[in-house]
């Protein structure tokens, strides 16, 4: 099988010739280490180097590093969205937040800015025009130029993570009681933005979407099922209904308590099944007939602090548990961050080949 066929077969819960490997992201500094210091490689070259079967996210190829999100004005956020300088397949809205930058360049949300009704005017200031043709035209060219035989995906958000981060988790928690309509209004606006993005993306030659919306910490989701159904699902459904391609859903943490609600949206896969929060054997048993499973190679310890031998062992175990009968795409339990040990990423690459054959 070609890589794309392998990924699409697994996404549809079928059994390919071997367990496919796709990551939600490989951070650029790690990509460069994998490629021996080069920055001029194509997405396909990175996939071949590691033996991965698909790509999305972004690559350093095509331009110098740009200012991180935190350093951009709302005007430059829009310009960067319309006219990306480096290869990207991301279509996520910016956080409407006061952003900070760590010394290593990683950005973080200092404080959400959507805290009252007056702050709703910030939507116009921050969100790019989802129908501006430039980004879609550019990404269409990149897909044509770089897809080769790989599965290509775009990252999106259903709007939930945007809502929570742009309000701030603590403020959001109280706002659900103090002003529930405002929470809904904010979610609706983010989801409507994504619906328009999706309507444009549906016309591109993408293979699938990957919706990134954290709902949980390692203990439990931030909302119960009743709150999920009231505050999130109606707006998530707007996005899900607009999607015309297979799609994967991502949330860190333990989403078991709301998983029935989420799965009813009709996604094809669930990612990343964080090992410290969710048991993949239970996922396979209870949800394996409904969705493809993606992920579960531990990022908290194994890939970042463990040894290549531990990576090898974990890959073997996961394939035995989750790979049975297909419907499993191996992946880290979030993304390959730049603080993963390079030797562990190579160990994962070797182990996937060693144990992944059906």
């Amino acid at each position, binding site marked *: 099988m070609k890589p794309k066929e392998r990924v699409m077969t697994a996404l549809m819960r079928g059994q390919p010739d071997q367990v496919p490997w796709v990551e939600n992201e490989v951070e650029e500094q790690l990509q460069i280490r994998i490629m021996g210091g080069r920055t001029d490689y194509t997405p396909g070259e990175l996939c071949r180097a590691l033996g991965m079967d698909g790509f999305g996210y972004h690559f350093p190829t095509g331009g110098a590093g740009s200012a991180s999100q935190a350093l951009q004005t709302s005007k430059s956020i829009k310009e960067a969205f319309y006219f990306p300088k480096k290869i990207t397949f991301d279509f996520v809205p910016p956080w409407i937040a006061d952003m*900070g930058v760590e010394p290593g360049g990683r950005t973080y949300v200092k404080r959400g800015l959507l805290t009252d009704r007056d702050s709703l005017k910030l939507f116009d200031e921050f969100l790019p025009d989802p129908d501006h043709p430039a980004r879609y035209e550019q990404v269409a060219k990149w897909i044509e130029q770089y897809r080769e035989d790989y599965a290509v995906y775009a990252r999106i958000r259903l709007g939930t993570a945007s809502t929570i981060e742009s309000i701030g988790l603590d403020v959001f928690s109280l706002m659900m009681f103090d002003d529930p309509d405002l929470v809904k209004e904010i979610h609706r606006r983010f989801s409507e933005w994504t619906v328009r993005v999706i309507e444009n993306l549906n016309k591109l030659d993408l293979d699938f979407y990957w919706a990134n919306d954290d709902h949980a*910490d390692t203990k439990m989701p931030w909302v119960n099922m009743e709150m999920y159904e009231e505050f999130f699902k109606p707006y998530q459904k707007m996005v899900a209904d607009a999607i015309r391609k297979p799609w994967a859903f991502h949330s860190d943490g333990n989403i078991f308590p709301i998983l029935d609600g989420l799965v009813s949206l009709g996604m094809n896969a669930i990612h990343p099944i964080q090992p410290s929060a969710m048991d993949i054997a239970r996922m396979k048993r209870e949800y394996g007939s409904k969705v493809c499973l993606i992920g579960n190679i531990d990022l908290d310890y194994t890939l970042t602090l463990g040894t290549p031998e531990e990576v090898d062992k974990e890959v073997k175990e996961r394939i035995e548990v989750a790979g049975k009968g297909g419907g499993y795409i191996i992946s880290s339990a979030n993304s390959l961050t730049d603080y993963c040990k390079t030797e562990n990423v190579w160990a994962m690459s070797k182990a996937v080949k060693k144990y992944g054959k059906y």
Partner: protein
Amino acid sequence: MSDQLEKIKDLCVRGKRVELLAELKTALAAGIEAKTLMTDALIPAMSVIGEKYSKGEYFLPHMMLGARAMSEAMEAIKSELSKGTYERKAKAVVGTVAGDFHDIGKNIVKLMLEGGGYEVIDLGVDVSPERFVEAVKNESPRFVMLSALITLTMESMRGTIEALSSAGLRGQVLIGVGGAPVTQKFADEIGADFYSQDAYGCVEKCNQLLR
């Protein structure tokens, strides 16, 4: 427990802050001491909230709602409390460790500790080992709580504990660690005194250690 104290506890558990503040005012006017309100109604309310959270009956928003009600209630009876003999259980210094800028988890731990009857000194985010050492010297806390969100910054927890040891302060404090990538195994490895997966578990561990 009197009906009035039971009502105050229940209002706090349900996060009904307006009714709670009114009921506290009535109770004080009726001659119930602020210390009694604190020890027999408000602190037990936080335990109920924590237990409900541990059992999965309450989720984060319910816990935050209760913690806000508790915090406002404490503020409302603060001046009355200071007239009496009420003392906080212990002092805790909390902070997100060096290199880490995430503060949501730390802030929730702070809220829950305050609600649980602790005095909390919040050092903020990206707190160097030296600042923790300085805070322990200046504040003489019983507990030091270290938070980290990403694997990359967990090592700063080890560095902070080492710095407290080098400064000869390790024996004076009980050190708790928490955050998404942190595990009991890691806590043991770096020589922390305890680990908790969530904010209320942290309060419970502190209570156990004080017994």
